């Protein structure tokens, strides 16, 4: 392939739906045209319709094409949701932690309004590339829609999640994006994230909702920051304990005892 997009990783490729065989030549011609127009190299005149290896390449190229976002080369939303579905299943069975991050470019509308849509496209491409540079091969980076990106990080413990989110945020903000000669834009993203619940059969909707809540918080807090839903912790802070036992409404035996000076040991003067 002549494309310089990074390959979608092995996990995502195995998760692709099996395509129906291309039956008639007309459809095949249309498919080849589409592939050619999209920059795929395999789309030459068929040596013969029975050439299995050649057909396989065509099918794989079509799968690749239909699972990618055309502008950025990232996984598209449909592909992302397929991978997320598979990850939920794995988490429910293995009890392993997985993290979903939702990222939104700050003030993207202003970029489009002030510099035009071509500049907006360049910004989207630059952000996509920077995000892709700082994840593991097993992670899936997707364009979730508009100026929103989503990342699945399988087997990501809470000890590292915050660091990954910060790294992504900093990488995007690290240097300006050139959208025209002498026009460099400072671009930042807000990041929200939520961990999957181990052993629990959750849903794509609920998991994304939780990440979205955190993204909203990151935006509320002033943008260009990260907000991850805290992973469950069993320890109870002093502040929580304080509140748990503070109220006068508690039964008498739970309220702190009145201090009585006679209970203190006396020291000889």
């Amino acid at each position: 392939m002549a494309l310089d997009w990074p390959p979608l990783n092995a996990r995502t490729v195995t998760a692709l739906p099996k395509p129906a065989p291309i039956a008639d030549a007309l459809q095949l011609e249309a498919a080849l045209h589409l592939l050619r127009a999209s920059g795929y190299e395999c789309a030459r005149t068929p040596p013969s319709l029975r050439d299995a290896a050649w057909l396989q390449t065509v099918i794989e190229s079509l799968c690749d094409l239909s699972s990618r976002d055309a502008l950025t080369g990232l996984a598209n939303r449909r592909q992302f949701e397929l991978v997320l579905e598979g990850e939920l299943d794995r988490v429910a069975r293995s009890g392993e932690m997985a993290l979903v991050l939702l990222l939104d470019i700050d003030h993207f509308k202003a970029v489009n309004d002030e510099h035009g849509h071509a500049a907006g496209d360049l910004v989207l491409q630059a952000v996509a590339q920077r995000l892709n540079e700082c994840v593991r091969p097993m992670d899936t980076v997707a364009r979730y829609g508009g100026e929103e990106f989503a990342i699945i990080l399988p087997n990501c413990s809470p000890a590292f999640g915050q660091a990954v989110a910060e790294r992504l945020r900093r990488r995007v903000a690290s240097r300006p994006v050139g959208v025209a000669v002498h026009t460099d834009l400072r671009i930042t993203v807000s990041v929200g994230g939520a961990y999957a619940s181990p052993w629990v059969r959750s849903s794509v909707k609920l998991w994304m909702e939780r990440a979205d809540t955190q993204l909203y918080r990151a935006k509320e807090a002033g943008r260009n920051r990260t907000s991850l839903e805290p992973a469950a912790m069993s320890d109870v802070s002093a502040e929580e304990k304080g509140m748990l036992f503070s109220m006068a409404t508690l039964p008498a035996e739970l309220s702190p005892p009145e201090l009585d000076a006679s209970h203190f040991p006396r020291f000889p003067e």
Partner: protein
Amino acid sequence: MNAPAPQSTGSTPGAARIVAITSGKGGVGKTFVSANLAAALAQQGKRVLVLDADLGLANLDVVLNLHPKTTLHDVFTGSATLAQALLPAPGGFTVLLAGSGLVEYSRLTPQIREQLTQVIDTVRPRFDVVLLDTGAGISDVVLYTISLADEVIVVATPEPTSLTDAYATIKVLAMQQERRRVNLLVNQVARSGDGRVIAQQLRQVIDRFVCGATGQSFSLELLGDVPADTGVRHAVVKRQLLMSLQPGAPASQAIVQIASQLSKLPTFKAPEATT
């Protein structure tokens, strides 16, 4: 309800409702509650199974004065069938005992997960209610067992340590298992009504520190409180159910009340195939 209870896939008509009974701290009467609640539910005409899911340190057999020949351990090792390990208990319900001191089961391995799930899937169609008497604390095994349940009951007593541990348990369930509802049972209260005050107190802390952190709603439902009752100690020493020994005792009546409260929960109200 737009928030599905975890693992609610199995709550089809005719399948048992799975209820996990847990507590952050040991010694709050969790097993006493499980056994007597099972008897109260059986009195309502329900087919009830109590599964001793405290695999490391089980003592349901002690509470019920049973001397089982076959336990869950035998089922896990393949030396007995599940049917052989289902034993009738006094009080009109069925028990599945873990066998005491199976320390090798205190760590959650993939095999144990698989086996526990299989056992629950197998018994589910034959009962109306399955009570999972979990271990104390929030170990892997306990959290996994709870993840299999439609409903969770956290048992606490009005002591600071018990309340703190109950709160820690609720917090983990809300934040790690996407639970949107947990039921509270306050045992050994001095006055009836204390449970309500304690539940309210817990709710305030949950609102601030759990909902505040996750942005999700959470409801703590008070199932009821059980008064401290000298009859309880008496029954435990005699190794009998309080429900049978002193059905009129305040604690027995409270348990009956809690059983009917439990039956009113949304997961229980779903249409049942058999009556």
